[in-house]
């Protein structure tokens, strides 16, 4: 009886093991991984050069946006913002022209034309999903997993850190007039106009 039990156990273990694992050559597996993996950097660069560049002209003027938000926030959020889910954090694609009021360690303060309300352009810590989500052009359903989707954000932010900000930071001076296009994330339930931080995607110094 005991022997029968042992035999049955061993047979079960062999069947389980046979269906649980498989063996391959390591170099073959490594080679196939490199061809099938999602390349977030490449995706972000293509998006930046094609879709994003072609849609920057759809940005809303920041002064106009802030005015609309103070008058009818619900309608403004519905019309101009994009977001991934049903949360309160929503992103806007914005543009503006103004004078640099101050240059700080992590950002610069800009006073847009015809506005008393200064906005901030982030220049040091570029993170979050505002750039990815502001246009509403990237659909999460295109991705097989959320990590790839999040990596696209990280790569877009990296492009800004490497390609947009260095030259601007070198030339920026207090009093310079700049034109910018960027993304801003605002909370639908807790709107705070005192600190509007824009992640710049394009900045040009006029004078």
């Amino acid at each position, binding site marked *: 009886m005991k022997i029968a039990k042992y035999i049955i156990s061993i047979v079960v273990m062999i069947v389980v093991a046979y269906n*649980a*694992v*498989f063996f391959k050559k*390591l170099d073959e597996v490594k080679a196939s991984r490199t061809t099938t993996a999602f390349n977030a950097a490449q995706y972000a660069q293509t998006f930046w050069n094609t879709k994003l560049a072609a849609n920057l002209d759809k940005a809303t003027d920041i002064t106009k946006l802030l005015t609309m938000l103070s008058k009818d926030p619900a309608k403004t959020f519905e019309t101009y913002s994009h977001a991934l889910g049903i949360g309160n954090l929503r992103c806007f694609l914005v543009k503006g022209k103004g004078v640099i009021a101050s240059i700080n360690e992590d950002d610069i303060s800009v006073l847009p034309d015809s506005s008393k309300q200064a906005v901030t352009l982030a220049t040091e810590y570029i993170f979050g999903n505002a750039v990815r989500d502001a246009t509403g052009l990237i659909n999460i359903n295109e991705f*097989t997993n*959320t*990590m790839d989707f999040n990596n696209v954000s990280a790569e877009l932010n990296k492009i800004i850190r490497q390609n947009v900000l260095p030259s601007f930071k070198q030339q920026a001076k207090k009093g310079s007039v700049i034109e910018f296009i960027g993304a801003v994330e605002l909370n639908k339930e807790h709107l705070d106009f005192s600190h509007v931080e824009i992640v710049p995607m394009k900045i040009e110094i006029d004078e």
Partner: protein
Amino acid sequence: METAINRKKYRQTISRFQSLIALFILCFVISLLSDKFLTATNIWNVMRQISVNICISVGMTLVVLTAGIDLSVGSILALCGAITAGLLKNGIEIPSHNLYIGFTIFGAIITGLLGGSLLGWFNGWAITKFKVPPFAATLAMLTIARGLTMLWTKGFPISNLGEKFASLGTGWFLGIPSPVWISGIIVFIAIIITNKTKLGRYIYAIGGNESAATLSGINIKKIKIAVYTIAGALAAVGGILVTSRLDAAQPNAGTGYELDSIAAVVIGGTSLSGGRGSVMGTVLGAVIIGVLNNGLVLLNVSPFWQQVVKGFVILIAVVIDKANAKE
């Protein structure tokens, strides 16, 4: 005299159905305050979320019935989810032999479950062998398993596990989400074990009076080790479900899950001193916790306040349990 008996019977009936009554009141209030609550999408979403807690809480119920506690379920969940994801995604590489050992979904899941069982067994062994209080032994395991998870994942999520594996947590079967089926089967088996088997009777006996159970010839050590092993295995099931649902194993997954499962057990009427309670009660407790979490989110309550509210609900449940025990 008759009135007093009737009043006692009435109180006993209320006490028996207190979780169900609490759930109905909760659902009624939330549905009045939020029109999104009673939508099919939201209900299925809540059921999916609850499924993981039910898996863990069923194991926790068995542990608590023996007058023990398992604080390591959240960490075991994370580790087993990470083991499953890691093996499925990366397999095992042996560069010296140019060999890659790949794991099928079945193989990765079996290994994850074995991992959870082993960690649970270790908890039970430490508790019975060295007479370590369950609180201390499982607290140690909480840290050990979390550390092992960080080592295994190197602190990064393991993602992109494939559609087939993801369907375990996100799929549907006969119009019901797969995790609900899985947790339902676990509940069904646990009810059979606790009500119809020797193991179930021994679990209640140990929790009710350990000395009496020892004297009546029950192998306490064996039963306790079995109970902690089951709790570990069920935490692993939870881990696999979470990993499948997110299509990623997060190194910090399961943080605080032990509290949710203890809350489900307590709210479900299982006595923390052991020997009294039921799996069905725990299921109701888990549903209450899930509905409460969902309701607070729908009502836009700050996450900080959500914790405060949940804490008070647990406290009230314990106070009611004490009052019931006195009667």
